[in-house]
């Protein structure tokens, strides 16, 4: 297994050249900073000997040049480095998303929505630190330390050795101490932040309930508790960082003091000229200023490791369905769906569907009925290629597990109970079914889904954004937008999972009639627990606890006298809402008679 940070780097490494450039610019800036202080020291010491002003001119020009180059190269480094890091980030985000796509929807069961969001946004963003706060500072620090120590060694060998040892300490030992101090805290940081984010997302999801049920105090208490955990972790982090800063200043002090201790006798016994004393004393000051940033780098590395692990978890999660390496092409013309002794389950501990055998010829209308929890949606997931199965499921003669998932879904469409309406325009939501569709096609699909009148009442028609209205889209409207999307997609086989669930009587009936016309050419599998109106379907399959208990036409099932006959009796006794509604006045309570 590749280490998490390395695999993070691989996803970003397309930016290697830009980052090398940034490191180079940064090293020049840092060297300029060190040289600037050294030259200034030399300049003032030389000036003290009151030489002709001309002697000082070269050094004075150099001071100004170094000051400029320090600022300008630092500017260049930051610009190039950040640009490269953000480019790398996009590459990483695409990698993470591709993995989520691979797993969706059944492989993501173990992750919550808020948690996935954190992985895709915050954990990916945390990877910015890898080039900016880890790689660039370290590369520069090593380069600058090398050059400075070499120069000191040339000037006064003993000072080179001592400062060199201290520099190695600042480069390796201090960051190591800091990293070890905060190791556990940093590793927990990303998961703790993710937990907080996920909790906030869940609290916002359930806002109405939390407020209505007076649970706000308990929920904010929980967030407070999670925040306490984060506070403890950052306290630990700051303790380590402060420790690193403290050690850094002590090492810097030791370096300056040592330089003075070594250089003062050297000046006194004439090994170096007096003007060099300031240089030997001031160079370490500047060098260790630069090395002072390394403990923070070490912490950044530990912290981003936590995020890298979370990103790798997604990469390592196996998907429930393994796409075939050599997919068998599905014939264009649909010649029938055949399930023989098929069984499947969501998770190892979940209830399964077993021994399912059904044949669906082209153009057929088949209803799958049964109480809630009997396995109807599990069956739908298998047909969509989202769940592995045992036994056989053949679509036009091709075993579904041997076909490419996306190709399968080009032929099989579904109106799910949890169909998502995206935060974009209604037209874009519908066009998802077929990106090439013209405005007229979209408009037609919306009309077919009985949304025509509602659309014309909206300020921007079908270009109205759904998100900005939020609450304004009722449950029924949501379902009908999703239906329009499916109609536009024109799939050969259509699975309708409770299509009229949130609709009132007349709208539901009208919609049923429209679907019937609009889907005339398609093969339809209707999943429902509502039995009214199934008289006309070709076949009704009744599921109970994951098994088919009866199959046949409405009349046959009615005659058999089982669950179907009993439930149908219950439903058909009731008055029709379609007849009741229009007789009522709007907005006024009337006693029921």
């Amino acid at each position: 297994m590749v280490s998490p940070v390395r695999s993070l780097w691989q996803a970003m490494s397309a930016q290697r050249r830009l980052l090398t450039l940034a490191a180079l610019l940064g090293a020049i800036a840092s060297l300029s900073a060190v040289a600037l202080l050294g030259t200034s020291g030399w300049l003032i010491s030389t000036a003290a000997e009151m030489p002709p002003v001309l002697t000082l001119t070269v050094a004075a020009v150099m001071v100004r040049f170094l000051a400029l180059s320090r600022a300008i190269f630092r500017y260049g480094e930051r610009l190039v480095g950040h640009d490269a890091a953000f480019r790398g980030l996009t590459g990483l985000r695409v990698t993470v998303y591709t993995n989520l796509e691979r797993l969706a929807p059944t492989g993501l069961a173990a992750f919550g929505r808020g948690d996935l969001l954190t992985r895709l946004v915050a954990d990916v963003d945390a990877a910015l630190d890898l080039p900016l706060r880890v790689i660039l500072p370290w590369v520069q620090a090593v380069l600058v330390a090398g050059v400075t120590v070499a120069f000191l060694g040339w000037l006064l060998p003993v000072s080179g050795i001592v400062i060199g040892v201290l520099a190695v300490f600042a480069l390796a030992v201090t960051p190591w101490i800091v990293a070890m101090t905060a190791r556990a805290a940093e590793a927990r940081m990303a998961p703790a932040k993710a937990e907080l984010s996920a909790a906030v997302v869940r609290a916002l999801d359930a806002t109405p309930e939390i407020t209505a049920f007076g649970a706000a105090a308990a929920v904010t208490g929980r967030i407070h508790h999670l925040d306490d955990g984060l506070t403890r972790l950052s306290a630990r982090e700051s303790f380590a960082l402060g420790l690193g800063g403290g050690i850094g200043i002590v090492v810097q002090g030791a370096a300056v003091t040592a330089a003075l201790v070594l250089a003062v006798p050297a000046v006194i016994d004439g090994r170096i000229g007096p003007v060099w004393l300031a240089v030997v004393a001031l160079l370490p000051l500047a060098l260790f200023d630069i090395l002072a940033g390394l403990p923070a780098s070490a912490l950044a590395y530990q912290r981003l490791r936590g995020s890298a692990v979370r990103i790798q978890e997604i990469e390592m999660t196996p998907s429930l369905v393994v796409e075939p390496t050599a997919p068998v092409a599905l014939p264009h013309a649909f010649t029938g769906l055949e399930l023989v002794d098929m069984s499947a389950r969501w998770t190892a501990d979940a209830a399964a569907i077993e021994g399912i055998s059904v044949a669906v010829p082209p153009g057929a209308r088949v209803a799958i009925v049964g109480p809630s929890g009997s396995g109807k949606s599990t069956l739908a997931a298998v047909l969509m290629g989202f769940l592995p199965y045992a036994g056989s499921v053949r679509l036009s003669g091709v075993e579904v597990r041997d076909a490419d998932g996306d190709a399968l879904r080009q032929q099989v469409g579904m109106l799910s109970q949890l169909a998502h309406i995206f935060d974009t325009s209604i037209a874009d939501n519908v066009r998802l079914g077929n990106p090439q569709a013209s405005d007229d096609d979209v408009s037609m699909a919306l009309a077919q889904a009985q949304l025509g009148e509602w659309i014309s009442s909206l300020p921007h028609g079908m270009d109205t954004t759904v998100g900005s209205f939020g609450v304004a889209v009722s449950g029924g409207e949501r379902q009908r937008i999703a239906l329009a999307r499916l109609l536009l997609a024109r799939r050969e086989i259509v699975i309708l999972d409770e299509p009229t669930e949130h609709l009132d009587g007349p709208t539901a009936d009208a919609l049923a009639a429209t679907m019937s016309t609009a889907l005339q050419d398609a093969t339809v599998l209707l999943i429902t627990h509502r039995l009214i109106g199934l008289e006309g379907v070709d076949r009704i399959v009744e599921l109970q606890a994951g098994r088919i208990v009866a199959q046949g036409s409405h009349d046959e099932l009615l005659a058999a006298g089982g669950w179907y006959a009993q439930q149908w009796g219950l439903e058909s006794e009731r008055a029709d809402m379609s007849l009741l509604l229009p007789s009522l006045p709007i907005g006024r309570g009337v006693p029921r008679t």
Partner: protein
Amino acid sequence: MKPLDPRLMRYARSTRGFIGLAVVLGVITAVLVIAQARLLSDVIVSVTSEGASWSDVRDAVVAVAAIFATRAVIAWLAEVAAVRASARAKQQLREATLTHVLALGPAGPGAHSPGETAALITRGIDALDGYYARYLPQLVLAVIVPVAVLMTVLGQDLLSTLIIAVTLPLIPVFMILIGMYTKSQVDRQWSTLALLSGHFLDLVSGLPTLKIFGRAKSQVEAIRAIGDRYRSTTMGVLRVSFLSSLALELLATLSVALVAVSVGIRLAEGQITYPVALFVLLLAPEAYLPLRLVGQHFHAAAEGLGAADRLFTILELPVPVGGSVVLPDGRIRIVVSDLQVSYPQRPEPALDTATFTAEPGTVTAIVGGSGGGKSTLINALLGFASATGGTVHLEVDGMGTNLDEVDLAQWRRRIAWLPQRAHLAGSDLPDSPTVVDAITLRDATVSEDEVWRALTDAGIAAEIRAMPDGLHTRLRADGSGLSVGQMQRLSLARALLTPADVVLLDEPTAALDPSSEEAVVAAVRRLAQAGATVVVVAHRPALVEIADQVVRIDRPRAQNVAADFDANLPAAAETIRGVGW
């Protein structure tokens, strides 16, 4: 953007004590910085020009080392204090915002734009680290250290003092100008980030749908495009920030160079002494450094300040507080007269008009077309939506109070509510709550017997009992555990858990098969018989049949549609029965 936003202090009180500490540490740092320069220049001068021996300067060298050690301790203290203060402040802000968003309910930003709001509460507030932990302490240092340095230099060399005094104020002036310029850019950066979070939450939630339509893979391009947009707006802000750092650094460097050149020339001409020259030269950069760092940290804090702006917009949204009247115990009669609810962003009223009286011990069925305002009526009764016309009057034993005068928290405690789209969450906000977590959201102290009673009333007890983990079965969002119909009945069980005087149910029988529906209808009837005031949104006949009164809520023009439908009814019914389901 102001250098010091008083609102940040108001919402995060813990900040004040921290600023006091920062001032103390700042003063100490200033003294140490000056002493360090003094000692360092003394040592160099005495060795180079006065021929001092090692023993002459030993004490001074030891003192330099001691100053370094003290500064190390101070830096450590400052760092720990800053991060701690920042964490406290963030916690206070986070709690205040979340409490406020929850109080705003389903009409608030939490429901409108959950992705953006979540990003604000988590990352937005985290971004304030830069403000609290870096910028604020540096701001304090930037006030103290330059003044102290200037006073010290004044005692040494007048001309240098003048140069510093003239150039130093240029830095804050320059910063203010840049701050004004970057404000709009920082706002845009935060908008992009919020958009990014909102978009990705949308994407993650909609992945199954995208996959069904074979559009999931093509989202890669959208992600790339958003990523590029994020990069370019962020780089826009960073460019300005880096450029201003560059300008500040050049300004500081030139000012130091001016001091150095004037000192150098006068030193070469013998107008000032070497000790003074070296001391001034070592000290001058220390005056500019804190100000430069403030400039840098200000930009680092800018993202947080951009988020803070949004945060305060939310915190300043008025919460429907209601009144303070607590209804006395007893059965509640609800009198709704000409109630109308409009949302500011919609031209048409969400609920046009409703007039009815719900008596205790009766069932009122709300029927009508999709989108006609049935759920809005329920929201109005819960106090989530304010009436824009008409009244809701609550009467207990003949004593009446208007809903807008009632203490909402107390009022809601009397209500059992089932929303149309229920979210099953535990008060501990676990990833996937257990059945018992989800049901006891309202009151975690109820006994297991009561939980089972509620489950039985909702017609799901047998199924829960049959599950291997029973009450501790985990509920997953993707349907791998329970079906939508089972979730629906769990939400009903949650509503029925504690006894309530008012029962508001929005489509309690959606997604239920006929025999489950039968059980739920029976439970609703029992609630009414026990004396509760039951208002139920019904799409199907079974609930209407047990209702004592029926209220039709529809858009006005729906009357015509219904009339048309009525006229065509035989034909339409024929079509439905004839062709399909």
